[in-house]
């Protein structure tokens, strides 16, 4: 019984702090954050980013705008992060297909997996929309990384650096609501 209690306590300690994610975004040289609000990342990422004078937040009306804006910024070597929900990712697939993949632009997308159960892999989610995200990325050849706990934050800077080095998109999938601290 004690072991079970300890295991539950350990599981409860698995967290993702928004401040860690934002620090990694900044360390990646990102200057612009392009976003449609997503309840997964609203409190832990978007709100603090909106209050952070070292990042320029561009609020857009629809997610595919981010793909064009990021491309335009890239022509002058400005790094951008697109912060959206998976529903917006799905809505933007043609823009991602054309601008990011076929024209080989380093579009870096941070995608909130609304409804995802953090203890599962996205491919095993009970939510259909979440379950199809990684296979879609694979079909389009887009590298993707799951960011579900603080230990995953170390993946962010190398992934963004590689996207710019290769001039190719990347998807950073947020599998747990980042804490607003």
């Amino acid at each position, binding site marked *: 019984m004690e072991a079970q209690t300890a295991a539950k306590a350990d599981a409860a300690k698995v967290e993702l702090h928004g401040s860690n994610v934002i620090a990694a975004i900044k360390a990646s040289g990102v200057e*612009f954050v392009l976003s449609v609000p997503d309840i997964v990342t609203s409190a832990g990422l978007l709100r603090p980013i909106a209050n952070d004078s070292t990042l*320029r937040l*561009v*609020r*857009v*009306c*629809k997610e*595919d*705008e*981010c*793909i*064009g*804006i*990021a*491309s*335009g*910024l*890239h*022509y*002058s*070597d*400005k790094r*951008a992060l697109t912060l959206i929900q998976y529903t917006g990712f799905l809505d933007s697939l*043609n*823009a991602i*297909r*054309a*601008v990011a993949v*076929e*024209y080989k632009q380093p579009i870096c997308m941070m995608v909130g997996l609304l409804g995802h159960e953090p203890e599962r892999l996205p491919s095993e989610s009970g939510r259909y929309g979440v379950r199809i995200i990684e296979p879609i990325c694979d079909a389009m050849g887009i590298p993707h990384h799951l960011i579900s706990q603080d230990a995953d934050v170390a993946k962010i800077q190398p992934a963004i650096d590689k996207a710019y080095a290769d001039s190719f998109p990347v998807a950073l999938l947020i599998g747990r609501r980042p804490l607003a601290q």
Partner: protein
Amino acid sequence: MMKREDCFKALARHVTDEVVVATYSSAVEWNDLGPRVLNYFSMGAMGLASSHALGLALANPNRQIIVLDGDGSLLMNLGSLVTIGAQSPKNLVHFVSHNECYEANGSHPLPNPKVDFSGLARSAGYAHVFDFNELASFEQQVAHVIGLQGPVFATLRVERSRPLTYDYPALYAPEKRRALKAELRKG
């Protein structure tokens, strides 16, 4: 009613070091006026020309960015008017050629051919809004329009064009994109 190619010829007489972002039929007719390193052709994802232009404008605040949009294209990204209005880049001039149809896709009519783009841009927050349907008036004012502090919006009421040849791979060739990027890196 004007011809788009006449409007573009009038515009070209005043374009120097501006980046011109053009899409679909507008891109073809602008490109027909001659090669320019500072042309940026937005293809593959219809509607995004204004968003590409916003990114360029934010990254290059000291350089004027001119976008040559289409009416069908802009209808696919109307939210970008609001985004641009909010960001309010002083260096962005947004033309939309209003010929009331999806010219690059068979000239089928817009869902509402009489949509008031200038009214939409005005309410979205553009600093200056124009609406041209006579070439003489456009020729007289175009230098003033592109010299204003933006964001500036202008509807060009134009006829359907002559038959165009759409060679998208040539317009968006990798070497052209590399040349544009190299030019912008010079500052």
